């Protein structure tokens, strides 16, 4: 039997599941009107509706109690208005990030966000996903300038505008980025875009955790585009420089002068597809504490690491994810909280457990916002930190 894949699903698969909990029904609307009908149905029948894109970030979130209806938005995949001289593009929520990238490349522009293969614009915004460029270019919150979205009580919102600067009213677009579809369903998004860098150079340096910190410091100082650490299990840091050819050459020289063992690598890839590992745990600390945090976490046993060194965010993975992983998670969260950081459990013994920490007072305000925008409780209920 080909069961649903926990946390992710292959395009075209009939099943979709969140943490092993399969959707009781999947709908694939082809218009905004059909999305509205589905929301109306969910309100009428009190369904827990989860909007879905490429399904690449479904492992982020608490385990919902019910998963009645998956609304797969990938049929809403049209790229709409685009004005290169205004650095603005509008596309439907189900548009794949890779398709938009191909489209923008024709005009030598880019939306500098990354997602695993299949990730959609609505999905990366709803999950506030950012890849290696997070350090130099920010996250969807920094690039989303407008949207159309449908709230849980069926109100169509026109968020923001099609210009890069706008301070009219509350920034509801930022609020929706990272809301995991719990406040409103994106149907159309407008992003600011940037010129595509003329040149890029990626340098790979084999190192230790202690050595990684000094690479990070130099790379930050040189103005790197991304600084990524991997441990599989050998530790290596990849530093990317992007921009004017002269500048990239100068940056590369300085890096190599200090770290002679740096080797030029292929163009840095995007984030990997969801890990097949059983235990996936992400945390964030101040950037200069990240290597120390990793040392402490790895002291309790080996784990795979993928880290955004410039931003202080890392994902740990391990093969064993059952109840025996609980002790490990406790040790990790203890270390990270002691360093003033936050964490989230993406895969592992999630059931019945708060998958985000440490608990924050502001989540109570967030819960009230959820009630205001989804009063009937039909959108991605039970997914957010705090369990609402």
């Amino acid at each position: 039997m080909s069961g649903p894949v926990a946390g992710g699903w292959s395009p075209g698969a009939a099943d979709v599941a969140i943490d092993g909990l399969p959707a009781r029904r999947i709908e694939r609307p082809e218009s905004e009107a059909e999305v509205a009908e589905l929301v109306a149905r969910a309100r009428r029948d009190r369904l827990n509706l989860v909007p879905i894109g490429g399904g690449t970030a479904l492992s982020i979130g608490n385990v919902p109690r019910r998963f009645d209806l998956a609304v797969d938005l990938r049929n809403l995949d049209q790229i709409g208005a685009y004005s290169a001289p205004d650095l603005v593009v509008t596309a439907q929520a189900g548009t794949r990030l890779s398709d938009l990238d191909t489209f923008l490349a024709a005009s030598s522009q880019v939306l500098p966000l990354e997602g695993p293969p299949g990730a959609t614009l609505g999905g990366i915004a709803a999950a506030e996903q950012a890849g290696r460029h997070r350090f130099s270019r920010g996250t969807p919150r920094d690039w989303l300038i407008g949207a159309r979205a449908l709230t849980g009580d069926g109100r169509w919102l026109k968020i923001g505008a099609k210009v890069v600067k706008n301070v009219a009213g509350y920034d509801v677009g930022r609020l929706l980025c990272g809301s995991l579809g719990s406040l409103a369903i994106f149907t159309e998004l407008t992003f600011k875009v940037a010129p595509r860098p003329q040149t890029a150079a990626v340098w790979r340096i084999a190192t230790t955790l202690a050595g990684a910190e000094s690479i990070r410091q130099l790379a930050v100082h040189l103005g790197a585009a991304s600084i990524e650490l991997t441990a599989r299990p050998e530790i290596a840091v990849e530093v990317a420089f992007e921009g004017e050819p002269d500048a990239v050459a100068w940056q590369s020289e300085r890096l190599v002068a200090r770290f002679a063992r740096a080797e030029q690598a292929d163009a840095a890839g995007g984030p990997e597809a969801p890990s097949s590992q059983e235990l996936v745990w992400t945390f964030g600390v101040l950037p200069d504490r990240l290597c120390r945090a990793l040392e402490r976490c790895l002291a309790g046993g080996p784990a795979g690491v993928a880290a955004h060194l410039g931003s202080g965010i890392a994902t740990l993975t391990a093969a064993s994810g059952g109840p025996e992983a609980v002790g490990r998670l406790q040790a990790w969260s203890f270390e990270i909280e002691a360093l003033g950081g936050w964490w989230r459990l993406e895969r592992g013994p999630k059931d019945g457990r708060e998958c985000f920490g440490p608990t924050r007072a502001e989540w109570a305000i967030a819960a009230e916002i959820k009630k205001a925008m989804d009063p009937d409780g039909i959108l991605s209920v039970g997914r957010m930190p705090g369990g609402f």
Partner: protein
Amino acid sequence: MHELSPMKAFIASLEKLLGRDRVLHTPAARMAYECDALTIAKHRPDVVVLPESTQEVSAVCKLAHATGVAVVPRGAGTGLSGGALAADGGVMIATARMNRILAVDVPNRRAVVQPGLVNTPLSEAVRSEGLGFAPDPSSQFACTLGGNVAENAGGPHTLKYGVTTNHVLGLTVVRSDGSIVTLGGTAEGLPGYDLVGLFVGSEGTLGVATEIVVKLVALPEAVRTMLAVFDSIAHASDAVGALIRSGIVPAALEMMDNLVIRAVEAAYGFGFPLDAAAVLIVELDGLAAGLDRQAVRASDILKASGAREVRLAKDEADRQLLWKSRKRAVGALGRYAPAHATQDGVIPPSKLPEVLAQIARIADRYRIRIANVFHAGDGNLHPIALFDDRDEDEIRRVIAAGGEILRLCASLGGSITGEHGIGIEKLAHMELLFGPDDLFIQDAIRRIWDPEGLMNPGKLLPQRACGEVARFSGATARAQLGGLR
């Protein structure tokens, strides 16, 4: 003994809390707080307090909440949309004495500051570390970080570096009931809704920020600043599009028209050609390597678009004078007319040629003079109406022309404000951008933070249904504006 009026009793409680010297309630003392930089709307707060800590702000808000008195936060009062106007009186919380830098974390490029800290001193304090705070509104020598957060302030260099919301990671906020909550923090990527992003730009309606965690940016290694001179506004507008299409993102890309050029030349003597129809200030920054080549490319593009001359700032002093001319341009316009009103709208920059032509036609139609000095690269217009504020008819025409310009911006998919905020000035224009459902949701969000409607009432959202405790609608000042409309 006679009983004190509720306001008098409230003031007495404030004095007990803060001491008499930090509670201002004489008419003369309150006059200094009767308006912000939107000077056509004036209303005095009933009392002004000068707290020095989060706890004191909290205590003031608790008292105000218990008494049903409106709270109006205020930084330096440089806001241009009336956000710091005590629209219906109440207690004004002036943050002037909360002006310290609490912490600087150089390795992580963070600083924690109090809301009354002025923008420029923050950048000055970290300059020796090679860092700075990116948002640089023209009022940066006076405006405060708290005000920057409330308004989501911008400035010329936001084209490359982003506006305030891109540089704030965490906030300590006092809510209308006096409770204190921490939003965000110093680490990136915290789980949950982006309440920091919601708070930034909320114009004092969700609470009072008492501590702000900001990101600092590395100062560029090198800077090249150019002045491009044009004989026609259309050519200058075309050049903006040509530059952006070429893949160059300048750190700043500013336009000034002839009226502005003549005023700033008289004031600062930079050497602007008085006969130019428009100039562009183009600043490129980054690593020294390759910057000159980029500057040559930019210069070629500007010339190909019709610039008759492209001048490179000779040295840092020359560059500083150029920026001083730009940032103080609005003040220099004082020589043309007794009063001026700066409008703030955003359009796609590719529409600049037709929009500037339309603005000129609107000025003709309303028989007013409009000067243009603005952030061309992101399409953030600042048409400045020059008028006589003793002439009621002219004031009416200025307001009507401003409304027409905003309708034009909205009709092109733009915004009615790029960096000045809605405040009280643009309440009536919110409907150009938002429908009833949008406004309903925004109002619902506001009620979560401030159910009684005590926090900077009468701002940002039109027509708020009144609560029982307080009936503050901003009626007084709005009537003043409305009477002129």
